[in-house]
């Protein structure tokens, strides 16, 4: 099993490359809405911090049910006078085979109907006996509030190639996304993300508040024809979601996400 893990990582595992790649956020997260955002949203687009609320979240998933590909992400957001800041930590792998740790810090600010954001990550990869190195990369993002219900954004990561070692230039990433808040209960959104060394990823998603305490989401990663869904329960500021994604060849990825977020100021 230890032998195939690096191979799997090369082909299917994206987050180790950059946390801000535009599609490496936990399922059930959207940056292109106001009502459906959560503390992980800034990983999708740093500009979403411009109207963030105080919150914290934790996500865990077990990719393809392989313990070597377990992922853990924690994030917190805090509105400040001139925008919002976000902090995230991501860990994947096992200490025995392959592990990757990333720290992300970002800031977002609104300039009228345009939001802008920027973030940095420190990315440390360790493969015992092979390599142990770290690199700093950065991302910039923007979100345009084109209509009261429709947002579109762009996030670029690593445009000046960060290097963990001279022969390893981290891939740059370009992602665009858009979200249409059909109503307070329904959000339709999508993201297209391309990293220079990976095929383009396309995600189309729908999130729905079934009733006050029950939320659901469904989507598909079109590039690998991989559907996912989420079901959650919310009570006041607390929300818990279970997620599941199915890859046609590699199988199931179950996940769990919990977040606590201050109630949105509707006058904002």
């Amino acid at each position, binding site marked *: 099993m230890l032998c195939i893990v690096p191979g799997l990582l090369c082909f299917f595992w994206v987050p180790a490359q950059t946390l801000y790649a535009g599609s490496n956020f936990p399922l059930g997260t959207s940056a292109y809405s106001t009502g459906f955002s959560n503390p992980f949203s800034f990983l999708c687009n740093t500009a979403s911090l411009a109207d963030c609320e105080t919150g914290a979240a934790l996500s865990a998933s077990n990719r393809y049910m392989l313990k070597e590909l377990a992922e853990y992400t924690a994030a917190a957001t805090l509105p400040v006078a001139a925008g919002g800041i976000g902090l995230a930590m991501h860990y994947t792998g096992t200490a025995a085979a392959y592990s990757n740790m990333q720290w992300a810090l970002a800031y977002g600010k609104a300039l*009228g*109907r*345009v939001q802008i954001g920027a973030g940095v990550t420190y990315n440390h990869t360790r493969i015992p006996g092979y390599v142990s190195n770290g690199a700093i990369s950065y991302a910039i993002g923007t979100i*345009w509030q*084109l*209509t009261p219900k*429709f947002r*579109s954004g*762009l996030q*670029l990561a690593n*445009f000046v190639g960060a290097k963990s070692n001279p022969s390893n*230039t981290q891939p*740059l990433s*370009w992602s*665009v996304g*858009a979200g249409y808040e059909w109503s307070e209960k329904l959000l339709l959104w999508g993201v*297209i993300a*391309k990293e*220079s060394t990976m*095929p*383009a990823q*396309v995600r189309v998603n729908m999130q729905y508040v079934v009733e006050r305490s029950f939320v659901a989401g469904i989507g598909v990663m079109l590039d690998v024809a991989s559907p996912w869904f989420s079901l959650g329960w919310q009570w006041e500021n607390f929300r818990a979601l279970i997620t599941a994604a199915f890859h046609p060849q590699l199988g199931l990825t179950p996940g769990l996400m919990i977040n606590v977020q201050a109630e949105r100021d509707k006058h904002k």
Partner: protein
Amino acid sequence: MRVRLIILFIMVLLFAATAQEEYAPDPYEQQLENLAAVGEEESIDDAQWQYLEHRRRHRLNLNTADEEELSALALLTDLQVQQLLHYRKVLGPFLHIYELQAVPGMDIPTIRRILPFVAVTGVAVGIEPLGKRFANGDKKLLVRTSRVLEKAKGYQGGDATRQYPGSPLHVFVRYRYQFRDLLQYGITAEKDPGEELLRGRQRYGFDFYSLHFFVQKLGIIKALALGDYSISLGQGLVHWQGQGFKKSAAVMNVKRQASVVKPYTSAGEYNFHRGAAITVQYNRIQATSFVSYRKLSASVKNDEGGAYITSVAASGYHRTMAEWRARNSVGWLAAGANVQYNHQRLHVGLNMIQHRFAVPFRALPEPYDYYSLQGAGWSNYSIDYSYTAGNLHLFGEIAADKLLHAAWLQGVILTADPAVDVALLFRNISPAYQAVAGNAFTEGSKPENETGLYTGIAIKPTRRLRVDAYADFFRFSWLRFGVHAPSAGSDYLLQVNWTPNRNTEIYCRYRFEQKGANVPQEGGGLPAVLPAKKRSWRMQVSWQMTPALQLRKRVELLRYSKAGVHQSGFLGFADIRYARPFTPWQASCRLQFFATDDYEARIYTLEHAVLYSSSAPAFFGTGVRWYCNFSYKIDQFISRLARAKTNCRIGLHFSQTSYASGTAPGSGPDQLNGNRKSVVMAQVLIGG
């Protein structure tokens, strides 16, 4: 009249609520990108851009404009032109520009597109005699220079036959005098990178010069061109030197529209005539005659059968020894005529053109070239026609070449409903039919060896939504270059435009194209011809955030498949354009990322540099590109220097493309060291 005024007042209110200030979309963006993809040529003839800039300064009066002038904008379909003229004829002159909304077939986006170039005035402008036209016109001097900062192999010494003797500087100079639409003359000179200037083989100056003199509306003479000019006949089956768009998201633009004679002012060194052309008009009859003699750059070979042309070089590059030898090596005499009868909604035209080359063409000993142009003389003849009946516009052309091989093109444009437009175009062009400079609405770059049916539909279900779609089925009954068997194909496009508010335009486009392509067989032998499929999906958002600031972004995904081998491509860009009204400066920047598996998955995008300079390069490989444009008006400074009111705008452009390591941009002598290509361009435009 009273009712009309009330309607007009309501329309003004409605339109004012939806009008955009200073919104200048690229009206031909997708057409130009598609044209580049068909012809695989990067540079773009700026004639239409010049014309639109002229119209921006001297707006077309809708109360006096004729069919030809309206068509020359290339922003209206022929049916819209006819409907506008009919409206004016029935209801009298327009009272206000907003009355355009009352013209059948006109929608808000179309009106917005033409708005910067048209006006409604009650004053008819007189036609001055020739002598008076030489004063008070616009004088415009344009000097543009650019260069690639990295040194290409062609400048680094080594193999003398592949070296460029000149500097890597590109220099373009154009002077033009224009008195409204009545008189125009000027000179154009150009030196391409690698060509010499004022030394060596070019000791007398530039590599390319072009002079033109063009006068219109001189009594019975409708147009007279001396020097360099272009000729466009019928629907392009026999001859078309103007810009001819092909399939694009402007699904209704299937008809070729242009004046027969136009002055030639571009830097392209191939697609024009040199001599004289005259158009006279008497009542409903218009007749044009032209004669031209110029030299073509062509590769000429000799064998026991004598000299013959193997290929004509359209690039205009005369840098290496081989290119220099080909320069102006073949004389080309062309003469032709067009007679047309126009009465109300009927148009019938007779066209003929004859060519005589100093050196004959000869087909290559390849099956695909079996029907190509042969001999030292060639001729083409055609009848073109159009008729408008209510909301239906029919047009077409029937042509034959010297050997009586036939070509036929028939189109229909129909406004089936105020919200639905339909276009149909059928073409049947014999594999043996040849035209020296034909350019019709076909799948191939030239009108030959093609049978096809194009159907397009534009639906406007709501004011905010527009759906454009086309389907084109075509068949090539003989072999083509790179396709060693008769083949067939299809091309589909669906584009949904959503305009959620007056400042935002979003479109999604899906295109699928399938046509035959050679697939080499293991162990050699004849290649198999299998379908090559190309699917592309694009989304673009344009947002006029403030009257001065426009933001745009695009993402495009492409997948190419042939014989089980797939290539994918991705391109994304973000634009910022700043042009505040009544301020002297403008700026724009673009950041772009592209990543394609190989050349077949290349993606084209239109780029603007300085005024009148645009291109639609193909991007392949992996890289990041950015460019910045800046222009500044220094009218006061120049006016003080010249001691007369003079307009002056300087333009600067810098672009840089960084390819993934290991990829060197360019090929052959143009290949650069390293993985970066940087271009700097500067332009001064005086007068206007």
